[in-house]
């Protein structure tokens, strides 16, 4: 058998395996053998390039953009209108409502849990008339495009475990995030960029941990790749000073030639994989700076997002998310910090809303106008909600709210989501779910479903167990599917 035959056979074997053994390796071999072969759009809509090989259902969404609002934005002050709570301000939360819910160490010492109404008035937005706060008028302006879920609930009451839970299905570290599962199961549809990209914004507030975009027990290549607004957009993407692109190409050709010789001599297909990885690295050296350069966007677009070239902001990241979607990156996760409003909620909430409102809405509008919204699932939300009672004293324009896992609001839009609706109801205190509760695992199951994946069948054997994102639970929320 010649090397070429051998490699072809190898490729076939790995393709049969759904590239589960060495996913990228298969792609690499494919392109090594046939440079014209693009690993782009699969002809069969059910084909997945990742470990799954085959999707379980026809996908509604081709990709996900998840705007993660770190810290826990207050559902009561943004999305879940509670007029009664306004009247009840200053009164104690009835035990019959609290029902023994755990309280964090930050308010467990308070002698009284006094309720406090929303900081800002609500109004009806759009033809659907969804009620949302006045502080998010732009999000209000896309009310007819989004599905507002008011009945999400989760288990943990502190940031670290709550973010970990919502994204990995488990409170303790060690498991892969939603994005990593997607990358693993579905593979990349992009030849020039990673399949799971992470963008950070906002300073102060709760810390972030790389675990929030980690691969857990999955191989390291499934971890989210941070794209940054300052310095190298992707770490080490820039050549060292003194090596210009032409020199890099020439040196790289040398590496590739020598690696090919070694492949001839040794025959290890891993060398072929490496050769292809170096080609993609080279392409990234061009594609990443090109992607990150928003200066050529029209003034209108920049203004729509509130983005400013050269700055680092949530607005810029939203615009980048659209650019990543255009380039068919599978999973884009934004983290925006500082939604943890234990005190000074009215002013802090307003400040955060001002940073996020315009750009979040712009992303929806922009995707829509480019025909991308239908195939892109956009998610907006944090790790939990906030209490209907105040942390600390209540004054005319100052109060705070503690963490609240029993109910909170998120919204989704685009690929496969029914637009212009609200789902789920909470009680008049915004404390308990009254109907159509969506547990964190249900949310995860639904996201995977939209990507064409049965959450029970996307598994990875680790320590003898076939782990999955939704652990042993999770039901797809059928009512919000388009």
């Amino acid at each position, binding site marked *: 058998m010649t090397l070429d035959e051998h490699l072809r056979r190898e490729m076939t074997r790995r393709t049969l395996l759904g590239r589960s053994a060495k996913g990228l390796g298969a792609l690499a071999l494919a392109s090594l053998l046939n440079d014209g072969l693009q690993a782009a759009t699969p002809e069969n809509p059910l084909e997945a390039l990742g470990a799954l090989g085959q999707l379980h259902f026809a996908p509604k969404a081709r990709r996900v953009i998840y705007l993660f609002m770190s810290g826990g934005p207050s559902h009561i002050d943004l999305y879940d209108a509670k007029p009664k709570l306004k009247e009840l301000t200053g009164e104690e939360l009835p035990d019959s409502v609290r029902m023994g819910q755990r309280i964090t160490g930050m308010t467990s010492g308070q002698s009284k849990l006094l309720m406090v109404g929303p900081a800002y008035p609500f109004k009806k937005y759009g033809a659907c008339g969804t009620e949302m706060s006045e502080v998010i008028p732009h999000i209000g302006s896309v009310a007819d495009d989004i599905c507002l879920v008011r009945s999400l609930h989760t288990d943990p009451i502190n940031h670290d475990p709550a973010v970990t839970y919502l994204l990995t299905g488990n409170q303790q570290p060690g498991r892969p995030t939603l994005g990593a599962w997607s990358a693993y199961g579905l593979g990349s549809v992009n030849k020039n960029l990673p399949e799971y990209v992470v963008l950070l914004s906002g300073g102060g507030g709760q810390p972030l941990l790389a675990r929030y975009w980690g691969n857990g027990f999955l191989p390291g290549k499934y971890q989210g790749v941070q794209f940054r607004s300052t310095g190298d957009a992707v770490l*080490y993407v820039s050549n060292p000073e*003194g090596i210009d692109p032409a020199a890099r190409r020439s040196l790289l050709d040398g590496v590739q030639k*020598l690696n090919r010789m070694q492949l001839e001599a*040794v025959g290890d297909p891993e060398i072929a994989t490496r050769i292809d990885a170096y080609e*993609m690295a080279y392409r990234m050296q061009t594609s990443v700076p090109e992607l990150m350069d928003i200066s050529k966007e029209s003034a209108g677009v920049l203004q729509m997002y509130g983005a400013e070239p050269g700055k680092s902001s949530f607005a810029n990241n939203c615009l980048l998310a659209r650019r990543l979607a255009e380039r068919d990156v599978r999973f884009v996760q934004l983290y925006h910090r500082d939604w943890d409003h234990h005190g000074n909620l009215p002013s802090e909430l307003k400040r955060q809303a001002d940073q996020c409102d315009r750009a979040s809405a712009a992303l929806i509008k922009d995707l829509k106008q480019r025909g991308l919204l239908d195939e892109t699932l956009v998610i907006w939300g944090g790790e939990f909600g906030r209490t209907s009672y105040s942390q600390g004293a209540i004054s005319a324009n100052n109060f705070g709210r503690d963490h609240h896992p029993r109910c909170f609001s998120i919204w989704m839009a685009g690929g496969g989501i029914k637009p212009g609706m609200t789902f789920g109801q909470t009680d008049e205190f915004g404390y308990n779910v009254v109907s159509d509760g969506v547990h964190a695992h249900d949310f995860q199951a639904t996201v995977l479903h939209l990507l064409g994946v049965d959450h029970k069948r996307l598994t990875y054997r680790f*320590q003898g167990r076939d782990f999955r994102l939704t652990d042993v639970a999770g039901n797809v929320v059928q009512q919000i599917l388009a």
Partner: protein
Amino acid sequence: MPRLLLLATAVAALALPRHSFAEEPAAAPVDYQREVRQILSNHCYACHGPDEAQLQAGLRLDQRERALAALESGAHAIVPGDSQASALVQRITSTDPDTVMPPADAGKPLSEKQIATLKRWIDEGAKWQDHWSYQPIERPAAPVVKDASWPRTPIDNFILQRLEQEKLQPEAEADRSALIRRLSFDLTGLPPSAADVDAFVADDDPDAYERLVDRLLASPRYGERMAQKWLDLARYADTNGYHIDNHRDMWLYREWVIDAFNRNLPFDQFVVEQLAGDLLPNPTVEQKIASGFHRNGMVNFEGGADPAEYLSKYIVDRVNTTATVFLGSTLACTECHDHKYDPFTQREFYSLYAYFHNVPEQGLDGRKTNPVPSMRVPQPEQKAQLAQLNRQKAEIEKQVQAKLAEFEKIDVPNTPAALSPTPREYVWVDDAIPAGSKSSGKGVEDWGFAGSPQPVLSGNVASQRRAEGLSQHFFEQASQPLLIGEGDKFVAHVWLDPASPPAEIMLQFNDGSGWEHRAVWGENKIDWGKADSPSRRAIGGLPPAGRWVRLEVDAAAVGLPAGSTIDGWACTQFGGHVYWDKLGIVTRMPQGSSINDNQATWELAERGKAKSSLPEDVQKAIKIAAAERTDEQRSAVRNHFIRHHYSQARATFAPLEQQAAALDKQRDEVRTAFPEVMVMEEMAKPRDTFILVRGDFRTLGEKVTPSVPASLSPLPEGAPANRLGLAQWLVDPRHPLVARVTVNRYWQQYFGAGIVKTSEDFGSQGDQPSHPQLLDWLAAEFIESGWNIKALQKQIVMSAVYRQSSRVDPAKHTRDPENRLLARGPRFRLDGEMIRDASLAIGGLLDDRIGGPSVAPYQPPGLWEQVGFGGEFSSQSYTQSHGRDLYRRGMYVYIKRAMPYPPLATFDAPNREVCTDRRERTNTPLQALVLLNDPAFVEAARGLAQRIVGSEFSSPPERVNLAFKLCTSRMPRPEEAQVLLAIYDEQRARFEKDPAAAEKLLKVGESPLPTSMSPVELAAWTAVANVLLNLDETITKG
């Protein structure tokens, strides 16, 4: 069959290596162990396995009696010898979706082949065996092989027997340069030097290989290499891991691990010391450090988190880690329920938990310092510093004693208070409270001192206070009390604000034991003391407002007769706005520094203090009347007075005391610099342990005591019911798992995969061993060798199977793509740390110091800051190291769990949040970017360029040869050399045209740039070196 099923079957078949090789002879009976158990486990145990709570239809398939017994329905799942009569077969072959097993919604249908296997197994009598890994380890004889010339060690017989069965030929021995490269990476984590390669290639001695092995095993780099792997298991890191993820000090533990490997501590001792070093009789400091193994887990202090929840998580992590590392078992499931696949119950989980539940630690900890328990460990150089300081201190003490001896001859005034002839006013408080005193009173830490525009009588400030109701400020514990003589009067000056006069004012005095001495003016509003007694002496009406008024209080009238002292004073008011200034006493007694003119006066003052700072013996003696003291007591008091207080002796002793104090300060500094390390300790009274229902820390179930899983070997006789007993159980030679799991892990280190590929799971869901007999042989040898770790390594690397060429033969690769049968030598990418180390070594930059705190290499700015909480917490912003620290081995790079060092993370280094047994080896574009552009690797390329330009070789071909050899341990083939020479020529021409580019390239990295070399030449070679450091071969062990 739908495509997905086919696919699943294909995957399953490949996961079991035996199926992908030669066809089974048709006659061979089904082997339960290898063929049946895994089907039952993966497809049936979830409902018919060890988890009794989930058991369906009363059928349990993991135990023979239960599987053969009558079911709840009366039917029999398995009728040995009769598959047709077996309900199990009826159900798995049923076409009715309601009755077919496994149920469709379980998502785990059986393949035709699996069904056939089960049928045949039942027809053959349903022979049962207990799971292989729980059986005692028996040493098998090395099998006889046809080609008796190939084996070099018994290991080879096991390997070759299988290859012969499969009709596969082993590869020839690798060439010498490949062997030394493979051995060097495997045993030291570093490439061989060019000289070592040459020497080994030229060494014809038949013992040359063994000598090389022995030399590498004796290298201190060996300990680092082995420790690197162990630290993944120990989840060693430099930060606490949860939430804010701040700094912790654990590097002494890392150092211990390196040292333990280097001194070849037997594995049983290695285990005992790490699990229970603190519980050994008279543990050494090193053994206590070793016990930090189970303190490496993450620790939290997130605001508002529940300490009980996290305490529980720390212990769960210890149980899970213990299970992975030593048992190769996955106990994590049993935190919440009985195991689905393996014979472990939830009760057993918490019985193990009980061993780790008695550490005096806190659920939330680590905010500022190491989480407790933690200890400080003086390092050798610090011990030397201390000894030196102690010697200096002793020298000073000698001088002090000599001077004191001189004072023996001098008459020191020691008569009851030498009174001044007339009373004088002594001001105690003017612009400051007396030295040493502690002030208090709400909001007046500074005693309310303020100056103009408020009224001030004396000095620059007066103290003031505005109050609603009763309010005061006071100080106490003045180091120099007021001495009270006959007829003495306290004096204070007060200014009442006419706009807001108080209802009452009061002065209050502390005699060292209490405040029951009060003088009041004005209305009777202050509710303290007994009227008309020293505890509340009314002096008169409220003084006039709007001006300074002098108040006087007869000391005796408030219960402070001659001979008493006060060391505290309070200014009190009821409402209003009051200023106080110039507080003191009219007295004939010596006060202030003149107290120290006379021993008796000094003693009087000392006795009046609430809190004495005197040494204990002096304190005791001073309370005894002078005449009644022993000689010893007398001289103790006298010497102390002279040495520390006597005004006439200050000039003699003060300089000596200052020197002594400076030494004390230095000593403290050395002591606080002792590195800290978290360790295990046992609480005097153990905590009670309960089963946590569904793993929820709030729901306590039955109480349990420490014990080990019943399905494994029993606890050794006399093993204590603590961690030491647990450790003794693990290293008991009868233990079926520990030796197997350990040798398998070492095998994995050399060959890329273990004999059991799922090295972390030896249970029924794990992979079958590729060479079960070899595994047992190695395990038995390991135990018999006295758990000799180095001997085990030597045994493996001496084998013929290890020494094979790693060339990939296409035909073999098709048969055995993962090389499970080892018909060729191992070839795989190096770990991230080894890639870093190799490039530093090749570039001549590697720093060879062993141990010490972690270092911070070049890292793009902002990574930590962007995710960090900041504020007062440590490890929130990155401070890069400089100098030699930049070039330390990868294992010393600071591990921040929330933001691991990117170059290592990119090469699959785990983030150390949890125990990692196997690193995945991926091959990605981001890795290419690291090697091409990370300044550390660019600098290493420059280092390599400097080495070759500075070498004895001057012609480009010779230089190419040297550079290539440094990177790959071999000479380049002519066509390879040609490629590199062409690059050199091209780059040299480019840099000649653009010397500025050369200068820029050479500026990367902080290592000094030799001025003697031509920048253009150096830059051209740096570019060539950049190519070489990126070669697949450079980062591969082949």
